[in-house]
């Protein structure tokens, strides 16, 4: 078997292992899905009336209007939650005896990491589908057509995948499982410090600068456009793709280096 073929085969095996873990230990998945759903209900029904009234052109039926505004933000909160799960998952795995066994076997070095990242991407899409389902039940009626939906699914899968790579590297770099659950919290904050919940125009200047520069604003804005059935602003679209590529590259090389270092101790 060639190196590439065995990397693909081993990654597939590890991916199946991660899916089985999610089935056997659904606690983390439920938590990861529960938080964004809870936030959605909270932001729409508790804060929605007031926040919606503050939106440009907001008025009556403000909470429904706010629902449409906040869903992309909540979806990205979901992605951030996935990052958290990915980080905890890999940190926990690295403490297990089974990973020591993997290291003494002739399997592709990237396979364990690939398994986690792919598993988390699937978990992420499941989470986003459920959040979306709840939003539809709450009355959201996206204007997106079939094509926009397809692009949206691919786009969110890519975001999940790239954020998962970063999170896996963060999880690998932390010494304890507790540490691994803290580092990716930064991702959970970013939608709040971006255009997730209120338009960035309403923020103080310095924060507005940060909100426009950080990765989650382009992620959220692209999602928002696609849901509304509009072509995404190319500025946000390209920024999203650049951020995704950067996350994948950085996460991949960082976690590979850490895995290598932890695998063969010098």
């Amino acid at each position, binding site marked *: 078997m060639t190196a590439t073929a065995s990397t693909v085969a081993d990654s597939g095996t590890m991916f199946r292992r991660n899916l*089985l*873990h999610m089935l056997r230990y659904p606690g983390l998945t439920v938590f990861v899905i529960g938080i964004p759903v809870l936030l959605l209900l909270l932001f729409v029904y508790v804060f929605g009336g007031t926040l919606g009234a503050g939106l440009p052109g907001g008025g009556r039926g403000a909470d429904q209007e706010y629902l449409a505004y906040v869903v992309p933000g909540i979806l990205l909160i979901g992605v951030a939650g996935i990052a958290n799960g990915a980080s905890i998952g890999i940190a926990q795995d690295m403490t297990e005896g*089974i990973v*020591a*066994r993997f290291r*003494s076997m002739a399997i592709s070095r990237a396979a364990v990491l690939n398994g986690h990242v792919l598993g988390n991407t699937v978990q992420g899409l499941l989470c986003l589908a459920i959040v979306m389902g709840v939003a539809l039940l709450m009355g959201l009626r996206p204007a997106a057509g079939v094509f926009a939906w397809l692009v949206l699914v691919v786009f969110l899968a890519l975001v999940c995948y790239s954020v998962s790579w970063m999170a896996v590297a963060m999880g690998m770099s932390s010494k304890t499982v507790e540490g691994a659950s803290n580092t990716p919290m930064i991702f959970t904050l970013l939608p709040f410090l971006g255009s997730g919940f209120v338009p960035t125009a309403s923020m103080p200047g310095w924060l507005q600068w940060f909100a426009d520069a950080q990765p989650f604003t382009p992620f959220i804005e692209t999602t928002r456009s696609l849901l509304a059935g509009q072509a995404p602003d190319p500025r946000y679209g390209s920024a999203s793709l650049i951020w995704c590529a950067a996350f994948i590259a950085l996460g991949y090389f960082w976690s590979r280096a850490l895995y290598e270092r932890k*695998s*063969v*101790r*010098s």
Partner: protein
Amino acid sequence: MTMAITARGLTKRYREQTVLDSVDLDVTAGTVLALLGPNGAGKTTTVHILSTLVRPDAGSATIAGRDLRRDSQGVRGAIGLTGQFAAVDGLLTGEENLRLMADLRHLGPRVGRRRVAELLERFDLTEAARKPLVTYSGGMKRRLDLAMTLVGTPQIVFLDEPTTGLDPRSRQTMWEIVRELLDDGVTIFLTTQYLEEADRVADRVVVLDHGRVVGEGTPSELKARVGTEVLIVTDRDGTVRPEIPIDGTVGGLRDVLAAIDGDESASVSLRAPSLDDVFFALTGSSSSYDDAAPASASAPAFITREES
């Protein structure tokens, strides 16, 4: 004679402490080598180096004809490792664990399924195959662990303290499996703290102390140095005289007894030699691991009593 493992000058330091100091090892293919030593002697470090998990600071090794440094992936393909802690996936069932190994060894679905069924049967795990690992006893987990090591039919199997924490029956099963593996031509490298274990299963024994090889030979050569039993003479007032190693023959015992002077009513008893006796015989001082002494000194005598 083909060599399964040849190691020269393996050295490992952690900060100031030298864990392994220029260790040479030779293991003939198809035999059992026991690496005997107390806690902290460097046994696990040796196993980890030979199984590519730890990089040595100096020294070289050839394992199954492959160079440890240059072809570590080749080495990994030829070996199987069962460590001190069960390397199993606790969230999967026994069967899924074995399937995972079969998939990672690229056995293909048909061969893989057959191999898994075969190993479940051989390790008496068929009944528990579809149950989650939380329901497994310690002995079952160890058996599963070893079965997972054997999925890829490795040429060399490393067993790091394979009987630690096992009850006598599971220990018995472990030795039966070792014997079966030998019949299949597998080379076995095992570590143990118990002289009695090394004596029972090994073709050659290497004694490790403070990261250095202090003695090596066949179990009988080792016993010739240490004695097969230790005679203990206790005077009537309770004073215990210095222990005397004996060679297990009538003549030897008679000579030793003849040399005992004084109180005819002193009581005598025999015990199997312990790891401490090995160190005393080989290095002239008893094992210097005072902190490890309780576990390693009392356990061997206990095993001997229950198994002989």
